[in-house]
């Protein structure tokens, strides 16, 4: 069982809503944003925010920065630039540029960054039947 990355409850609920004709929304009506922070608390499916989000603005993830590297996998790619000395140890994918719902939270090894350093995250979410 992985300890470092979680598809959150709200992320799962969003996916189920998108499968339901009663609740699905058009692609143009929702957005994704990538954020980072310094928190190292083990992710849990009930997480709704990063533990300690850093000051940088969240990066909007355009449709062109999403793909399906396999038919059962969705991928988000986003770049964040440090605007000061930063410790980065977590990242999340959100539904809004502030607050919003957090679909995924990932904790990784600590990165000590200086202003101007950039991190490109590539996050894959794969759903599959265990018989595959």
């Amino acid at each position, binding site marked *: 069982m992985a300890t*470092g990355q979680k598809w959150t409850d709200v992320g799962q609920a969003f996916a189920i809503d998108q499968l339901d004709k009663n609740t699905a929304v058009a692609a143009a009506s929702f957005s994704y944003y990538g954020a980072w922070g310094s928190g190292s608390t083990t992710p849990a499916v009930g997480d709704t925010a990063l533990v300690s989000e850093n000051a940088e603005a969240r990066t909007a993830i355009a449709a062109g920065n999403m793909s399906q*590297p396999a038919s059962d996998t969705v991928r988000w790619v986003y770049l964040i630039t440090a605007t000061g000395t930063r410790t980065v140890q977590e990242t999340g994918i959100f539904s809004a540029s502030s607050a919003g719902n957090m679909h995924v939270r990932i904790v990784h090894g600590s*990165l000590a960054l200086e202003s101007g350093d950039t991190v490109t995250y590539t996050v894959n979410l794969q759903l599959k039947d265990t018989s595959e």
Partner: protein
Amino acid sequence: MSQETVFGEVEVNAFIELKRKNGSTEYFMVCNGENLTLTKEEYDYYITSKPIPFDGAN
């Protein structure tokens, strides 16, 4: 009537490309909260191929 229960799996995995202002670049695969250092060739392989299953189950 019989019912079949199908259990699915979720895997979340992540890769990091860190570009330093001094021009150097570091590559990592995130696994269980740790950064596994990759060469550029390994990073490119993982990014351009199908995601590999590793201990990233939800």
